[in-house]
């Protein structure tokens, strides 16, 4: 497909069309396509080494994709160098310039735009104040704490108000208590500034709580993208279901289809899973589906079609919820989460039947490899 065939949508901040990047024989990014509307918060989520950073670097122009097009604000920039793209990037280890004071670093982007000195000084002071680092203006990076460095890096990237801000695990280096505060601040900041954020993370809590749009990557490809609630409630592949915490992924063989409901034969028994928009798979073909751990019902009534006999192995208490790890026929492990405030109803070693209603089973698209 060439660029001429595709209508350019100017209201998009960023569009990736079939991006592909190889390092030698190794494909780091494979056929990645993405559309980012105005002022959106996008989270790129995936395990280590799946190509998140490489994708980000392609957008920034630090890597040259082997195939595909990159459009920023409707303008084709695939061949353009980083300094001609309307972006800024926040690096994972912040990449602060060790020989410049905080004020000088933050002003660097404005200097590159050849703004007058007085204007730069005024804008830098304003931004430093907004990020509450005005008192650090004359310090150098070696004299800053991790949290302060993070603010300086963010201020440096945002000072020129680029169209897109690329953030590579921006809060990965902060401790947990600080992360939540910073996440909240950044989300507010993003909404207010109208700058599109492309946020790379391997932390699903970050991705699902921050993103307007979550992109799950695995092995250089996009497995699924969509609104956070969409991805959470309807994982489309076994990988996504397994990667998102709290899913039970069950593998089996396709049986008969009746009224849009597929029978799936697994080691734990036969279950009924709705097809929804998927084409009926050939009988006997391998497939998988998932059920969220908190959607299971204890001691289900006769009207619940899917039921499993299990034995409880361990119970872990997390405060907000209580997780039961249970084992069924053939050693298959099933997780069951219960609201933490409820009294514990299953003991370790106890045998119990769990079930789930028809619409809580989520069939996956690709058969397990």
């Amino acid at each position, binding site marked *: 497909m060439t660029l001429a065939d595709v209508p350019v949508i100017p209201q998009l901040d960023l569009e990736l069309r079939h991006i592909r990047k190889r390092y030698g024989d190794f494909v780091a990014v494979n056929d990645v396509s993405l559309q980012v509307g105005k002022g959106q918060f996008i989270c790129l989520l995936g395990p280590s080494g799946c190509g998140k950073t490489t994708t980000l670097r392609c957008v*920034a122009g630090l890597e040259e994709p082997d195939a595909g097009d990159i459009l920023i604000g409707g303008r084709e920039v695939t061949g353009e*160098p980083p*300094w001609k793209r309307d972006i800024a990037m926040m*690096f994972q280890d912040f*990449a602060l310039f060790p*020989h410049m004071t905080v004020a000088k670093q933050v002003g*660097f*982007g404005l200097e*590159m735009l050849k703004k007058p000195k007085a204007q730069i000084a005024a804008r830098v002071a304003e931004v430093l104040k907004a990020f509450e680092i005005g008192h650090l203006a004359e310090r150098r990076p070696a004299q800053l704490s991790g949290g302060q460095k993070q603010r300086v890096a963010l201020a440096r990237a945002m000072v020129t108000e680029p169209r897109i801000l690329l953030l590579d695990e921006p809060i990965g280096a902060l401790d947990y208590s600080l992360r939540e505060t910073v996440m909240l601040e950044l989300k507010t900041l993003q909404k207010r500034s109208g700058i599109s954020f492309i946020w790379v993370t391997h932390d699903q809590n970050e991705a699902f709580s921050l993103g307007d749009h979550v992109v799950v990557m695995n092995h250089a490809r996009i497995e699924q993208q969509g609104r956070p609630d969409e991805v959470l409630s309807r994982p489309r592949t076994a990988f996504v279901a397994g990667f998102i915490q709290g899913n039970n992924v069950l593998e089996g063989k396709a049986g008969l289809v009746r009224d849009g409901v597929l029978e799936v034969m697994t080691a734990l028994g036969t279950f009924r899973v709705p097809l929804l928009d998927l084409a009926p798979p050939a009988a006997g073909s391998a497939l998988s589906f998932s059920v969220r751990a908190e959607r299971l019902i204890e001691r289900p009534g006769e009207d619940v079609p899917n039921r499993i006999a299990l034995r409880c192995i361990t119970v872990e208490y997390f405060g907000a919820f209580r997780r039961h790890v249970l084992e069924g026929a053939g050693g298959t492990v099933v997780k069951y989460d219960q609201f933490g405030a409820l009294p514990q109803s299953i003991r370790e070693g106890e045998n119990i039947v769990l079930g789930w209603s028809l619409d809580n089973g989520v069939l996956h698209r690709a058969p397990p490899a």
Partner: protein
Amino acid sequence: MHWKTRSRLTGWLLGTVTIGFLLFQWAPMFTMFTLSFSGENGGTTFPMNGVSLHWYRNLWEADLFDDFKPPMLRSFLLALACSATTVVLSVCAAQAMRGRFRGNGLYFYLLLLGLMAPGILVGFGFAILTRLLGIEGAWNTTAYVVHVSWALPFGFLTMLAVFNRFDPKLEEAALTLGATRLTAFRRITWPLILPGVIGTALFGFSLSYDEYARTLFTSGSDGTLPLAVMAQLDRQLTPELYAIGTATTAMSLIVISLCAIGFWLRARALRGSPT
């Protein structure tokens, strides 16, 4: 014995060896330095026969110094040129190595070969080559080329080590902030590799300044300081020569101290002034 005690003992031992080594290194220079202050009737060996500035005065007034002035000037200019060229070439070569181009391993070993080849043979071989090509040897052409080829591997290795520790993300950050490649180099890379560059410049200067073997056959009729000193040693040995040696060593020390002070000021600036 606790391993900490043992490592303290090792520390003492290594310290002693180091001090011994430094003494050994400085003893010849100290001998020369002392003898250069001997009295009018003093010779070139101990005992000193009095203490005076006679030989320095002699050096300043006598025509011996006039004999030495032109080679000294030539050596100085040659060393400066060699230093500047070495800096430019090694920064470029090390920068090229960062790009990991095809055959960079071969390039690396070829450059290092310059370190292994015996100087006198390199000089002689180069002289033959230039004669074949019909080029007249001179201190500022052929000798210059040979000196640069001698200092380059040292400078290259220094710059390679400097770039190895340099985080390329800093340059990339500058690029994403709107800096062109040239601006990023000027504003980010250059200030951060400057200590290494100064080290390379010092290497280039000192390797050229006292080079004898490679200069012998390549400098043509107008020799450099080491050649002049050698010629004088052959002719007549007086403490004046020691005075010359001491004076030039003092010059080098001053230059090195200035550099060291520069480094120190810079390191302090990087750490930031205490507030």
